[in-house]
């Protein structure tokens, strides 16, 4: 008979305020195997843990139930506490009476107490069947993968590389730099964005420990912390980057012009292009969709009717080192890495769903990122802020906040955090560009929480005369050359109408295209909007639920540049900590297969998502054997086997049934 000790945590009043702990303690004493019951104000505190350690030793306990918060919160803490008393850490079970009981049943204390008793009963029944488990050591590949080359990814890559580890930085676009590269100035210091970012981009390209893969995407990830096997698709650029010198003749001479993604449609790029002059690498790619030669090839291939497009190939003829390579193919790069940082960043909300603001059909209603490009000295207008419709300088500019933020009707109830600040910055900068500009900002609230933020928005109002109007805009329509902006100033309680030359929509933040797909490739969680979910929003903000996979920057939620940099650095610190170890210990909650029951049907090895089951010959037949290094303990094989040969340590059929039987005797 096991000797079970039960420790009931009050968690201050979090549990004890709802669950009647003395009643639970009385009831628990009656459960089979329970020889010791104690309660503590905070079991996770040092005195609480010391009490657990001491009681295990004093009472000769060989099983422990901790009735407290979620095991997802403190399982590791309590395993350590149990371990410190000389007991195997896996002889402990947690009854979750906080998240699953006191916090959700505060409206019925009696029922909550009754439920807490049963939850402890289940844990006691289960822990009685626990066995000692031991962690194993596995090797560690001292290399990291960073997905996304925005400021968060750049920071993470540089920090890891500076610590002496190899880093592979994968970026989908032809250049690193991300959103920050598109910006003109940064709030609240008005630093020139490119001036502070470009040196970091160059550092990345020149760092001996960083392998930069642009125009690439991570296709497949297998394995586990310490040994992730990744497949990266390097898309064909049709330019040989080894021979290309980046002289620029090809993109100067290319005759095909299309709207540039980097310019947010405010300017054009050629078919062979680098996104912007400071791009890293500063070597071009050919966009096969718009390239005349590719259109020509497509025309021939599909035997299309009509006028044949010209087989242009001007870039090839003019390229001095003959770096154009039409035969180039996508390449699959395979790497093994110990840790992965996800920094896939954000995109801005597509405002075409706001029909009342023109839905994208009024040319002088632009997005904040488009204004950013217009204000930028290296932008399409060389820093001249002009109206897209007629090229004149706008004198009255209206900003609309919360376009795709704080709007339940558009499915975006969250605050995008950065818009209030960048609107203040842009309104201020407009005045610097042209003192004759009057800016109006329609806002719901001015959210300026941050160092020097409030002072900055004040400055925009007081020094630069930006007029803030509290209220939403109901309609924008074109009236000859003017844009009529109809809204309400809710502070004076009157409708207002402004004849504007240009309207800027402060479009909100959402996860970048394909973020959910990246999360699925990595098997990490993401929320309904597609933002990555941290392991714990407060205490583990850069970790995910998958060991060895970290998140950084705006892929987790809206955040500004300093936060993204800090986040990237924090993720890097976690990676450096991991990679500083020569070996890793594995979780022993793995599957094991009873050789005497195995019929060698192979079903388990087919179903296993981690290829962790090998077939080995034994007694003239093949039987399944689990590779504990690869097994992640999902238990799929257990449920699939027809002859109940596999069992999952920590979650055996007997253990699960013991919980069921504790509930329904």
């Amino acid at each position, binding site marked *: 008979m096991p000797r079970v000790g039960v420790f009931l945590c009050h968690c201050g009043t979090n549990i004890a305020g709802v669950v009647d702990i003395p009643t639970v303690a009385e009831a628990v004493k009656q459960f089979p195997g329970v020889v010791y019951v104690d309660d503590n104000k905070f079991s996770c505190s040092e005195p609480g843990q010391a009490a657990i350690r001491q009681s295990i030793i004093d009472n000769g306990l060989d099983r422990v139930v901790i009735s407290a918060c979620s095991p*997802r919160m403190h399982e590791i803490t309590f395993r350590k506490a149990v371990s410190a008393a000389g007991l195997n850490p896996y002889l402990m079970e947690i009854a979750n009476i906080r*998240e699953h009981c006191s916090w*959700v049943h505060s409206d*019925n204390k009696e029922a909550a107490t009754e439920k807490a008793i049963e939850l402890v009963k289940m844990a006691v029944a289960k822990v009685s069947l626990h066995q000692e488990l031991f962690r194993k050591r596995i090797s560690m590949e001292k290399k990291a993968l960073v997905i996304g080359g925005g400021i968060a990814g750049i920071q993470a890559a540089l920090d890891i590389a500076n610590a002496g580890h190899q880093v592979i930085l994968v970026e989908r676009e032809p250049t690193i730099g991300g959103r920050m590269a598109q910006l003109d100035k940064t709030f609240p210091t008005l630093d020139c964005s490119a001036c502070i970012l470009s040196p970091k981009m160059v550092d990345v390209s020149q760092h001996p420990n960083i392998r930069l893969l642009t125009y690439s995407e991570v296709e497949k990830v297998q394995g586990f912390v310490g040994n992730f096997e990744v497949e990266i698709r390097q898309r064909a650029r049709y330019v040989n980057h080894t021979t290309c010198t980046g002289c620029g003749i090809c993109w100067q001479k290319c005759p095909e012009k299309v709207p540039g993604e980097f310019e947010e449609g405010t300017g054009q790029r050629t078919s062979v292009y680098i996104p912007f002059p400071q791009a890293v690498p500063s070597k071009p790619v050919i966009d096969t969709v718009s390239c005349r030669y590719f259109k020509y090839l497509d025309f021939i291939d599909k035997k299309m009717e009509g006028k044949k497009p010209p087989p242009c190939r001007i870039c090839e003829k003019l390229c001095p080192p003959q770096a154009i390579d039409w035969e180039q193919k996508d390449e699959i790069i395979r790497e093994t890495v110990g840790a992965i940082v996800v920094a896939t960043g954000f995109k801005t909300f597509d405002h075409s769903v706001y029909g009342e603001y023109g839905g994208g059909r009024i040319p002088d209603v632009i997005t904040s990122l488009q204004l950013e490009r217009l204000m930028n000295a290296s932008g399409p207008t060389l820093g001249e802020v002009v109206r897209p419709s007629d090229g004149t300088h706008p004198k009255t500019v209206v900003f609309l906040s919360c376009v795709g933020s704080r709007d339940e009707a558009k499915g975006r109830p969250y605050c995008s955090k950065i818009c209030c600040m960048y609107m203040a910055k842009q309104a201020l900068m407009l005045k610097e560009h042209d003192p004759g500009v009057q800016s109006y900002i329609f806002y719901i609230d001015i959210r300026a929480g941050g160092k020097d933020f409030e002072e900055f928005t004040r400055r925009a109002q007081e020094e630069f005369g930006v007029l803030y109007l509290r209220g939403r805009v109901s309609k924008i329509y074109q009236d000859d050359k003017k844009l009529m902006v109809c809204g309400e100033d809710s502070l004076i309680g009157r409708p207002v109408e402004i004849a504007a030359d240009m309207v800027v929509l402060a479009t909100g933040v959402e996860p970048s295209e394909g973020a959910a797909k990246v999360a699925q490739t990595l098997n990490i969680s993401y929320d309904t909007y597609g933002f990555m979910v941290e392991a714990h929003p407060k205490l583990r903000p850069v970790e995910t639920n998958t060991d060895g996979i970290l998140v950084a920057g705006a892929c987790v939620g809206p955040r500004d540049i300093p936060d993204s940099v800090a986040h990237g650095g924090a993720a890097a610190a976690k990676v450096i900590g991991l990679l500083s170890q020569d070996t890793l210990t594995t979780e022993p909650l793995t599957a094991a297969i009873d050789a005497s029951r195995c019929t060698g049907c192979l079903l388990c090895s087919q179903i296993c998502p981690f290829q962790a089951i090998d077939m080995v010959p034994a007694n003239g037949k093949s039987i399944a054997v689990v590779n504990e290094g690869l097994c992640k303990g999902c238990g799929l094989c257990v449920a*699939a086997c027809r002859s109940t040969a596999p069992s999952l340590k920590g979650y055996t059929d007997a253990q699960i049934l013991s919980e069921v039987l504790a*509930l329904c005797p």
Partner: protein
Amino acid sequence: MSVEEFQPRIIGFLCNWCSYAGADMAGTSRMTYPSNVRIIRLPCSGRVNPMIIFKAFQQGADGVMVSGCHPGDCHYVDGNYYARRRLAMLEPFLEYLGIEKGRFQLEWVSASEGKKWSQVVARFTDTVKSLGPRGKI
């Protein structure tokens, strides 16, 4: 004398990564829901074999719920797809055994869906309540 309302006994088998975390989220956000459900934590909804569900009903559970990650989001790549297929096969069989439709439910609740978890529990508890007590097989 007032007749005490029937309080069904409901067992929920939840995957650790999404639904269990979603139930935690409901707690952290202090969303209240009926206290009838008792949660058994499993690594993955794909760990649930029908035997466990039969056993729960056999022992007198009034309702059984399995909840995992949304299709496509499984922490173990595709465990929830196996769960979905396996448990879809199970449902008609439960009816054949005389366990009414509605007493068993498969749900997808993600780690961020605390609200959904509380709604799912409230709805399921109502359904099982309306079906009444079941007793041991």
